[in-house]
């Protein structure tokens, strides 16, 4: 079982969460080009190692959170801005 640190509920089983993927900068829709926007939509860093990502505590407080995870072994640590679900 993998435990994820929810800033509101504490450590909880990863099954309670929805995975919302790695955090990537969102271009400004009013100035972006179609190619740049599609890059934002589809391209991923897909890091093998520590990465910052967003999760949704769907069976708990139903809030978004940010955490850091090593994708090679699923070690997890809270992000300094864990409660800033919007991340950027």
């Amino acid at each position, binding site marked *: *079982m993998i435990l994820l640190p929810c800033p509101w509920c504490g450590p909880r089983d*990863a*099954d309670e969460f*929805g*995975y919302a*993927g*790695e955090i990537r900068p969102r271009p400004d829709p009013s100035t972006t080009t*179609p*190619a740049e926007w*599609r*890059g934002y*939509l*589809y*391209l*991923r*860093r*897909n*890091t*093998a190692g520590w990465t910052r990502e967003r999760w949704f505590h769907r069976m708990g407080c139903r809030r978004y959170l940010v955490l850091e995870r090593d*994708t*090679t*072994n*699923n070690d997890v640590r809270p992000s300094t801005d864990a409660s800033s679900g919007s991340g950027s």
Partner: protein
Amino acid sequence: MAEAYSALALLRHGVTGRSWTPMWRERPLERGYPVVIIGGGVHGLATAYYLAANHGVTNVAVLDKGYLGGGGSGRNTAILRSNYLTVEGVRFYDRSLELYRGMASALNFNVMFSRRGHLTLAHSDTSLRTMRWRAEVNKASGVDSEVIGPDEVKRLVPEMDTSATARYPVLGALHHPPGGIVRHDAVVWGYARAADRLGVHLHQHTEVTGIEVSGGRVTGVRTNRGPIATPVVLNATAGWASTVSDMAGVPLPVQTFPLQAAVTEPVKPFLRTVVVSGTLHVYVSQTARGELVFGASVDPFASYSTRGSLEFTEGLAGHVLQLMPSLAKLRLLRQWAGLCDMTPDFAPVMGATDVAGFFLDVGWGTYGFKAGPVAGEAMAECIATGQTPEIISAFGLDRFAQGRLVGEKGAAAVGH
């Protein structure tokens, strides 16, 4: 040169007790090759074989950081089918099935292809509608595919619970008679042996640590055994697709997810077809040895870890028993995980890139093994001629920037 396999050779070895020569040779790593293929799985080896066999390009190196067939090629559930949803997908996978059918004689290697039919179950009106859609697309492309009712499913698989009171009742199924299974290790070894006989160099335990790009062109690769000069590099990896592409500065629309599978102890042969349920996230087939092979959908979050989880085993067992309650006493022998490079449209990424000489054959999600032969054939043509073959023209990396996604999710997700 490895000897040819035949009844006469078997008799000769049986009588004399002489050992067989190794299937492929260890050769020294040269300083340069015209073509370097990263990834010694079915895709990389098939590409090397077809480069040599179809295009006369024999001076090819295949590099693998582990052993041949140790990645996705040895971890998949070895199911073959061509009943996809899009016209591009159907013709592509049907060509692969055709190559699999003729593979044993083409490679002089018994790959144990078993044509046994493939059932994709529908448990809801929505999935029944998708099955009808797929059947029509398949038939229009000349692929044998038909929607059948629960009675016919019961006739094909008597062990299946087709009662109307099941938690997820079987409303029908897409029946695809040409589908089947194959021995996946044999496919890898067959291609490796055939490529070696044609002069391809196979280098195991040779990890690529960098790709040299100069003036927008590939000039070489760095490995743990020294540098290799080359104008052409093919990324034929799974699980490391993004890592290798990053070395050439080509970002990919890929996220890597583990997919877990499991196998039971062997039992008497009873299951004649491949059974797939998208709703229950499970697919089942019985090997020639009698083991039942179970596969699932990918894990719920991206990861490079291939560690198994109890959540998976519990879920899998429950789902299998909903389909076939009589399997309750079977014991699981082992479970494992492979890495799946998922793309947004459940179609692969193939062909040239903006970096001259850097080619991609990646993004194979959960459907890479069945596509190995056709991918190798097409990538060999792409590299040898410099032209993108028509059969993979829909799968280019540029489709994402242009917004031309393929949309194969309806038939590629889970439904193996």
